[in-house]
């Protein structure tokens, strides 16, 4: 994947395009953004991910210029942008509601920003044609926004925000109004356009799958703070906290106390009368420290007999089965009453499923499958 080679955040010589330095934004007594420091690099596709009310939209509105930080500095290409009004920023935004001008045609909507500058008329027409071609809407240039479909409107909004070739494009829940199929197609289209235009994209979303698909890096936010910033793979495979592990995808959390048993290996006491779990961790834990083992359901194997060579194996009982078509999720109750989710691909037809309700089974996983977390 190209994204693996593109990693300016690992290069200490690279200058960030945007940097938030100790930015705080409060509305009255409510703190929307809490002392936040973050760098975003040129040509990144950066996702701000979090539940509603976590401050991600406020961050975007500060970048667009609709809100000013209460404290701290936001720099764009090394310059403080606080005194620059929204209409003078080399930043464009694609609104969640698309905010297309209902009284203007698709063509005029896209030309709107260009007409505010001193661009000659012919160049404007050429640029709009180019944008229409980019989003494949050439045939709809003369339609009004209410005469086209939701997906087409979304593309008009994208074309309009890209027309002025901004340094930075902000996308506020851009695909929220589209149905699942169209959303998937559009995600790839967005990535394609981002690559073609070389624009830096910052996308706000509460849909973790969307963030994982499109982004070069994801910032997981909660209550005005960034909890973790990393590539989608690292966010998923190596979350830094239970919050992130739980927010991204499905996860089982088993809490216990850690005890070092070797170089980077720990045993975790999790319930009375059960063998401790084994987990590998780069993060150091002291003996007796409270810890959480986070394991993704797809990394847990399920079998009728105790597997011979598993680092961790626990016996339990199937209490529920969720059939998802391509996958089945088994809900297995283990000693202590906790229910663990184990997922397996349905490579066989359903009638030949091995396990059913109330079956006693063994669940197992390797020492490196889980992540050991301290909070």
């Amino acid at each position, binding site marked *: 994947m190209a994204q693996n080679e593109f990693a300016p955040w690992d290069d200490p010589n690279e200058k960030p395009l945007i940097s938030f330095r100790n930015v705080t934004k409060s509305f009255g007594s409510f703190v929307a953004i809490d002392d936040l420091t973050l760098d975003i690099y040129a040509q990144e596709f950066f996702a701000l991910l979090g539940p509603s009310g976590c401050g991600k939209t406020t961050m975007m509105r500060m970048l667009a*210029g*609709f809100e000013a930080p209460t404290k701290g500095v936001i720099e764009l290409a090394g310059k403080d942008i606080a005194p620059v009004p*929204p*209409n*003078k920023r080399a930043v464009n935004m694609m609104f969640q509601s698309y905010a297309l*001008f*209902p009284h203007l045609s698709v063509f005029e909507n896209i030309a709107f*920003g260009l007409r*505010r*500058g001193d661009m000659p008329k012919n160049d404007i027409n050429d640029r709009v044609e180019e944008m229409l071609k980019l989003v494949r809407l050439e045939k709809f240039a003369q339609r009004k926004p209410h005469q086209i479909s939701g997906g087409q409107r979304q593309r008009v909004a994208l074309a309009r925000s890209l027309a002025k070739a901004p340094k930075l494009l902000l996308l506020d829940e851009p695909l929220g109004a589209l149905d699942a199929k169209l959303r998937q197609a559009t995600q790839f289209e967005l990535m394609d356009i981002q690559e073609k235009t070389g624009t830096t994209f910052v996308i706000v979303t509460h849909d973790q799958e969307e963030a994982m698909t499109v982004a070069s890096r994801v910032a997981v936010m909660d209550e005005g703070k960034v909890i973790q910033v990393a590539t989608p793979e690292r966010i998923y495979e190596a979350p830094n906290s239970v919050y992130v592990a739980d927010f991204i995808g499905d996860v089982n959390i088993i809490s216990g106390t850690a005890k070092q048993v070797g170089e980077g290996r720990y045993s975790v006491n999790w319930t009375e009368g059960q063998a401790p779990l084994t987990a590998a961790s780069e993060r150091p834990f002291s003996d007796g420290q409270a810890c959480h083992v986070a394991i993704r359901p797809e990394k847990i194997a399920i079998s009728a007999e105790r597997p011979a060579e598993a680092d961790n194996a626990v016996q339990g009982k199937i209490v529920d089965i969720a059939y998802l078509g391509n996958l089945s999720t088994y809900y297995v109750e283990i000693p202590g009453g906790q229910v663990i989710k184990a997922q397996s691909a349905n490579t066989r037809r359903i009638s030949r499923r091995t396990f059913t309700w109330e079956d006693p089974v063994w669940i197992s996983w390797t020492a490196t499958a889980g992540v050991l977390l301290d909070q």
Partner: protein
Amino acid sequence: MQRFALIFVPYAWLLALFLVPFIIVFKISLSDIALSIPPYTPTFDNGLAAFFAELDFENFEFLTTDDLYWKAYLSSLRIAVISTVLTLFVGYPIAYAMARAPEEWRPTLMMLVILPFWTSFLIRVYAWMGILSQEGFLNQFLLWLGLIDTPLIILNTTSAVYIGIVYTYLPFMILPIYAALDRLDGSLIEAAEDLGCSRLQAFWLVTVPLSKNGIVAGSFLVFIPALGEFVIPSLLGGSGTLMIGKVLWEEFFNNRDWPVASAVAVILLLILIIPIVLFQRNQQKQAEADA
């Protein structure tokens, strides 16, 4: 059957309260003046044939011979147009401020706009006489401030008529514009600014075009009644203010010439049909745009 019953009600209403009176007025406009009760001939006493034989258009011809009438029509048109524009200029900022006001204030502001309707229209116009007269509150106030030495003559001029019309019809301008501005999606203004508009440009390029329907509706709601306005020019305007509503009144009650007065009314109605039809079309277009 049920559907028929449903549309029958409004049609019966229109028939009884609009079409029948109009036919009566139209019939009178084709009659001749007479010193009798009712003050015109023919009546149905002599049979239908004789009745129809006596009807003619000479009252309408009479209207063209005396320049009072067409001057009054033109003057009414001018006053109605100017006062509509004035009302728009006063009403738009008020509607804009209302739409921008905090949510919890809006019902109160709306009530304040409608509040004058709780008092009789006549009393309010008389109150303006007290304000605008030479000894009135306005002149007293300006004299007290030292802005003027001698009282201004406002009452009994066309200016007083403009003031009266703007005051009376202001709510009809504010409410449709407010409704249009209230529906305006705030993110459209932000989008315009994001794309390089200054605040003022965003207002002209987005806010004004999107409140166009409200402006048009409000303008017609002011223009249509202002054109036939009678009370305001006769109470606030002097003898110099010529308006067709006043002429109509004088024909009916001073000259007791019902046929000519009816002819004046019929022409006025024909003139009004044009803006009414335009207004209806605007409303329909808006309804379609909303759908």
